[in-house]
């Protein structure tokens, strides 16, 4: 093979490689998950465990795909009835704790404070704690989880 043909072949291989990379890029750009976001009601605990007053932390788990996911929520006996609050701080996502003595949710990370119903009363959080859907059916309590 002479030098000219050799170079031509190199250029062609380079172009082929470029084409392949282009195809791979398209695969990469195409969204991997087109599943729509939905809500899933999971059986968290039973009715008799609902707090009679104040706030109660409930730990529960649910199956997602082939994984078991452990999570938690705060159940609050509010004026309008039971509400479930997500423990994820709206600032940077740390998990808040319920402080029984102060009657507030406190965030350990930057001192965010929320009242019993999740409204911000101090610190950096920009929004209240997220309310999770809560349903009581046949003695069972279901909490709505985003999936």
């Amino acid at each position: 093979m002479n030098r000219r043909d050799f170079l031509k072949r190199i250029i062609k291989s380079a172009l082929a490689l470029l084409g392949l990379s282009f195809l791979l890029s398209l695969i990469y750009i195409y969204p991997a998950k087109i599943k729509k976001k939905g809500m899933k009601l999971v059986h968290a605990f039973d009715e008799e465990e609902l707090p009679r007053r104040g706030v109660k932390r409930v730990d529960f788990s649910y199956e997602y795909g082939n994984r078991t996911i452990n999570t938690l929520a705060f159940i609050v006996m509010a004026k309008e009835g039971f509400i479930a609050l997500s423990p994820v701080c709206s600032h940077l996502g740390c998990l808040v704790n319920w402080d029984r003595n102060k009657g507030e949710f406190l965030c350990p990370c930057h001192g965010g404070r929320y009242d019993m119903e999740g409204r911000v009363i101090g610190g950096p959080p920009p929004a209240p704690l997220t309310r999770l859907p809560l349903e009581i059916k046949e003695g069972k309590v279901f909490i709505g989880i985003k999936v």
Partner: protein
Amino acid sequence: MGKIFDWIDSRFGVKEPHRRFLQRPLPEKLNYSYCLGGAAFTLFLMSVVTGLLLSIYYVPSETEAYKSVIRINEEVRLGWLVRSTHKWSANLLIIFIILHTIRVFITGSYRPPRELNWIAGVFTFIFAMASGFTGYLLPWDQKAYWATVVGTSMAGTVPFIGNALLYFVRGGPEVNGTTLIRFYSMHVLWIPVMMFIILCAHFHMVKKQGISGGL
């Protein structure tokens, strides 16, 4: 292939003015070490392309950055491949710039009239290092965060203007979301643009001055 190229080039006209350049005389004793600059350039292009791809999924925010990187690694199809290619090409770029510099040094190609091209080369090296430093923060994990805290704190040791310099690079007294955004902007916009400009100058000079005749 040739036909398509000829059709385009008969209108675009890039071949004719380059004929003399492509058929220019080269020094007798060329060897593969003269490809090191070209290899560095190839790596630069690879990091640009994979970087553009990463920017499709990466989210430069305090709350989302880390999550989006995990998503690229675990969910996005071929995401791991794109991310690793970006990392490897960036690291190899630094190595190949150094090897290329050694070649230029050994063959004495920095001598007149090529001093300015040596200087341009030094700038490509500075930009490549700056790109590595700013890129390292972007995953926003513990390693990245503390590396940036330590790295930027060096600016604070400069006499007299140390503090002002520190605020300048961090965007405030500490490393936080503001730092992340300015590092992101530097990494994907400012440095690549400056690198592009300096490489144009570098190649322009290689073209004008020709490859040096060796020792």
